[in-house]
Each structure stands twice: as C-alpha cells, then as structure tokens.
C-alpha cells in the first residue's frame, strides 16, 4: 500500500510502470465500483494510451513531470474534454465540455493520467452524496453508510484505493468532510490559490478546488502542481506559490495550536478523543497549546445558508434549456417562460431546487437587506474573529465533522444535514485554508468508521499548514488502508 508520491517514484525508477498502475486501478474499479458507485465513468482506453506513452518517455530517459504516470480521478463538476461533465445532475446529462479546466491542463502538464470522473452530490449541494442523480455513493469502510459530500465519489475512490489521488471542490466543507468520513486527507486551499476556470460555479465567493489524497505529502504535491495565477480566472490571487514540497519535511519551529472552546459541543466521543490525542501529539512536539474563542462558530451555518444559496441561484440561472443541458419535452411549454420553468423543474433535483428557492427568497425585494446584506456583514465579523484568533495561534485544531459516517437514509431533515458542516463552513466564509487528516476510528457502532481532525490556518499560510500536518501524519504512521 502506498501513496501517490511512492507510486510516482516507483514508476520513475522503473520498479513499476504507469501501465501497470492504470491496469491495477481499472481492475479494482471494475470489481468495486458496482457497489461503491464512486465513479460515474472511467477513461480506460485513453488512460492506457497515456500510460504507454509516459512509460516510453521514461524508458527513453526523457524528462517527465512531477506527476508522471499517476492516475487521478476528477470530481464531475470540473470540466474535461474527455467524457462528459454532469455535476451528477439530470440537467447536464450528456454535457460535453469544449475545453479543459485549468487544473486539468496543469495536471496533464505535470504528467498525470485522468482515470475517470467521480460522482458527487448534485451541483455539490449536500454532505452525503445521496443527492447524486445517478444513485448514492457508498462508504468503502461500511457500504451501508454515506461517504460524506459533496466530493464523496472522490473520497470513496481514494479510500478504496481506486486511484492515486482525486480532485474535489469545497464550498462549505465538501472536500474535508468526506475525507474525514472516508479516513483520508482532504485539503481546501485558501480562496484565490487555485484557478476555478472550468469548475462549474456553485458559490463564487466560496468555491475552491483541492485534492483528496492518501497522504499530506500527496496533497502538498498536487496543490503545488495546480496553484498559481491564471489569466482565465480573475479571482485567482496574483502572488507567487511557495515551494511547499521542498519545505514539507522541515520540522516546524516552535508553533502555537489554538483550541476553540466552541469546537467541543455535541461531538461523538470518538471525535473528541481524536482531537485530544492530537493535542497530546502537538504538546509532545513542543507546540504551545492556546485556548481561543470563536463565538461565531455557531452562526456559521446560518450565514452560509444565506450567502451560498444566494450565489447558487444566480450561478444556476444559466441552466435554461436553451444553449445546453436538459430541455423539456412537455407540450405545455409553448412559450419561453414555460420552457425555462419546466426544463429546470425536470432537470434539477430536490436539494438543488430547495437551495435555488432559498437563494431567490433571500435576494428578493424586501428581504435583501434583512438576509443577504446582514449575512455579508456577519461574514466580516467571522473573518475578524479568525484574524484575532490567528494573533494568538498559528493553526486552529478541531474536529472536521461532529460524527463519523451516518447510514444511508439516516439523515432526512435538510437542516440536520446542513449541520454536518458546522466546523467547515467558516473556513470558506473567511477564505482561509484547512486540511482534514485521518485521526483514528469510531468503533461504537461495531464497525470501524474513520474520524478526522481539522487544522485551519490563515489565508496563504499553506507552507506552515502542510508542515504541521505532515509532522502529525509521520507520527501517526500514515493512513490505514482497508484490508481486502
């Protein structure tokens, strides 16, 4: 069992080949995907052809990139010329992108092989992958349970070792929460670090692309291959990217770990225990543990469920049945309004409709100031609260999710589902970075269910965040793989 970096090194040194790696993952996908539903489609022929060409280049001694020959899975809201891009929604069934997202170009330039597209909550709206139009995704640790969401297909694919790594997107926890529930690493970069060109927009002031991986060093490497300014995305920060891979193994100097008192309310016992073990680890490393106060933790979900649906209903207005996507065949759609309204009602699933309705309501006449403007003001307070906290500490430690994976169909009330992200939404609201790390198991239900811890750091503090996360990973001995 190995991570992406180890596989890359073995391919580079000739110990194995890219073709062997691709064939191995495809065989595992064929065997496991009918149960897990992690992949929507795979690119078997294209992946084999890319692998053969990379193997020939390596054999000929040609220079290859930092990801040469490693098979990577892509969440289905990141556009690829290869195959289709559906966002796990009927409204985009059979949509073929005329271009590759910037992250796809950058992965390809680094030598990575696209092995397939992964299922997700429809339009990235959900925390369980149950809103996927192509059926629920299952957690490889216990297939009666959810993998988390919305990047649940990517998380399940990495957890079941069906790829070397995967890309996801994180608007309020959609990389970190499924990583936590699947026992792998999930990283959300600072807002503006990675181009969103070719990411189907959900919440434009919140969305970030990031990696789901077997290890922290894999996450750092993928981040470094993708990060940096992009002429196609004006919200990408025009600042140089530090070499986080090179500095990764430096044992961090004295650093301070902040522990918010508000992160200890109502968590599963195994989750609190994982945080406590992490505190002991950082103490033993010589870190200073600082109590901090984040009283607005509690209002993050409310703030998020005004801002995110408001942005979503604007972004999803483009799906109108005219230029692309599902168009109604209803005979009653004889004018333009009806064509829009029937196409959208037929094409969007229930959770997406709910958020469009919520977003339209909070932006509507008479409610804009009371909801949307107020939420943006509270967003500033949340940002200020983090700024104050980061005056006292370098990273904030806490749980990623209050619980381990729940059963499929176990959470039916929308509001309870939204609460899954109580510890992750404020990261996006403030635009800072966060990483979820595997941190043990909850065995209280009789099965081993992974639990994660989260480290958050200031915007653009990725180099420090990765170093601290890596030191924790090394002390833990890396993630546990599922025994066959």
């Amino acid at each position: 069992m190995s991570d992406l970096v180890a596989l890359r090194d073995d391919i580079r040194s000739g110990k194995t080949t890219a073709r062997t790696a691709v064939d191995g993952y495809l065989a595992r996908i064929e065997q496991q995907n009918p149960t897990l539903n992690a992949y929507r489609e795979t690119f078997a022929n294209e992946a084999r052809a890319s692998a053969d060409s990379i193997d020939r280049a390596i054999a000929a001694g040609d220079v290859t990139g930092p990801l040469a020959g490693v098979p990577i899975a892509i969440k289905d809201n990141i556009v690829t010329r290869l195959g289709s891009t559906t966002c796990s929604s009927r409204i985009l069934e059979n949509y073929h992108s005329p271009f590759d997202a910037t992250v796809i170009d950058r992965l390809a330039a680094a030598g990575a092989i696209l092995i397939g597209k992964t299922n997700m909550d429809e339009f990235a709206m959900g925390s369980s992958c149950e809103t996927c139009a192509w059926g629920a995704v299952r957690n490889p640790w216990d297939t009666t349970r959810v993998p988390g969401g919305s990047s649940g297909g990517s998380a399940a694919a990495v957890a079941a070792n069906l790829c070397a790594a995967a890309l996801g997107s994180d608007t309020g926890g959609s990389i970190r929460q499924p990583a936590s529930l699947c026992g792998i690493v999930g990283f959300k970069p600072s807002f503006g670090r990675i181009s969103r060109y070719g990411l189907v927009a959900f919440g434009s002031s919140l969305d970030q692309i990031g990696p789901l991986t077997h290890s922290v060093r894999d996450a750092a490497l993928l981040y470094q291959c993708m990060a940096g300014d992009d002429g196609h995305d004006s919200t990408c920060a025009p600042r140089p990217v530090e070499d986080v891979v090179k500095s990764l193994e430096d044992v961090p100097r004295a650093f301070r770990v902040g522990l918010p008192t508000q992160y200890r309310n109502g968590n599963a016992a195994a989750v609190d225990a994982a945080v406590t073990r992490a505190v002991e680890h950082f103490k033993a490393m010589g870190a200073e543990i600082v109590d901090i106060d984040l009283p607005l933790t509690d209002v993050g979900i409310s703030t998020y469920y005004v801002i995110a649906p408001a942005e979503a209903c604007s972004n999803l207005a483009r799906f109108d049945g005219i230029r692309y996507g599902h168009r109604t065949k209803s005979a009653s759609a004889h004018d333009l309004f009806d064509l829009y309204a029937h196409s959208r009602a037929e094409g969007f699933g229930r959770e997406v409709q709910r958020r469009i309705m919520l977003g339209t309501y909070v932006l509507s006449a008479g409610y804009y100031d009371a909801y949307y403007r107020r939420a943006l003001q509270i967003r500033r307070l949340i940002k200020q609260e983090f700024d104050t906290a980061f005056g006292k500490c370098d990273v904030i430690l806490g749980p990623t999710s209050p619980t381990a994976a729940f059963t499929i169909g176990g959470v039916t009330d929308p509001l309870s589902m939204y609460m899954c992200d109580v510890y992750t939404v404020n990261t996006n609201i403030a635009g800072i970075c966060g990483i979820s790390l595997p941190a043990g198991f909850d065995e209280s239900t009789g099965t081993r269910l992974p639990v994660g811890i989260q480290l958050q750091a200031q915007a653009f503090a990725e180099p420090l965040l990765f170093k601290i996360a890596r030191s924790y990973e090394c002390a833990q001995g890396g993630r546990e793989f599922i025994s066959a």
Partner: protein
Amino acid sequence: MSDLSDSKSPLGIDDVRHVAKLARLALSQERLAQLQRELVAILGHIEQLQAIDTTGLEPMTHPLTLSNRLADDVPEPGMPIAELLRNAPATEGVFLVVPKVLGGESA
C-alpha cells in the same frame, strides 16, 4: 411585482409560488407545500442572524481584496461554434431554436 415583505405570515404558500416563479421553476402544488415547510424551518434557524449587532459593518462580498483586474487587450481565438452547438438541445444551422419570444413571458 409584489413585495414579499408585505405578507403577514413568515412564508405563505403564495410567497413560495411567487419565489418559484422568480426562480423559473414549474413546481406542483404538492412540491410547493413541501418546500414551504422546509423553507420555514430553515429560515427559522437563520433567524438567529437577526440578534447579532451589525451596526457600521461593511458587507464582505468576497474574501480577496482584489481590485478589478484587466486582461491585455489582445484578441484570442474563441471557442469553436460547431463544438459549442453540439450541446444545444435544439438547433437549426448555426442557430439555437427557441419558442416565440415576442409577446412576452406568461404572467
């Protein structure tokens, strides 16, 4: 257009119908009623925001403090029209087929 804040109840079924119209969603009566129940519950939770003092706070629309960034004024090739039209549900030559537009949207 009616102002939603005029209605007395927090979110009546007529309000939900009006929002669905604004959102261009043709929903059944049953679905509207279900959404009404769900939205009332969610908005009830969001109500906690009203208790926070926001006096004098500048709304934060975006995490980055970037000013407008202008691209160099250099022509670049656009996307190929044939490939773009491949995704369109109804076309005629290089045109998208739509229902009659003049005459306005239905009330």
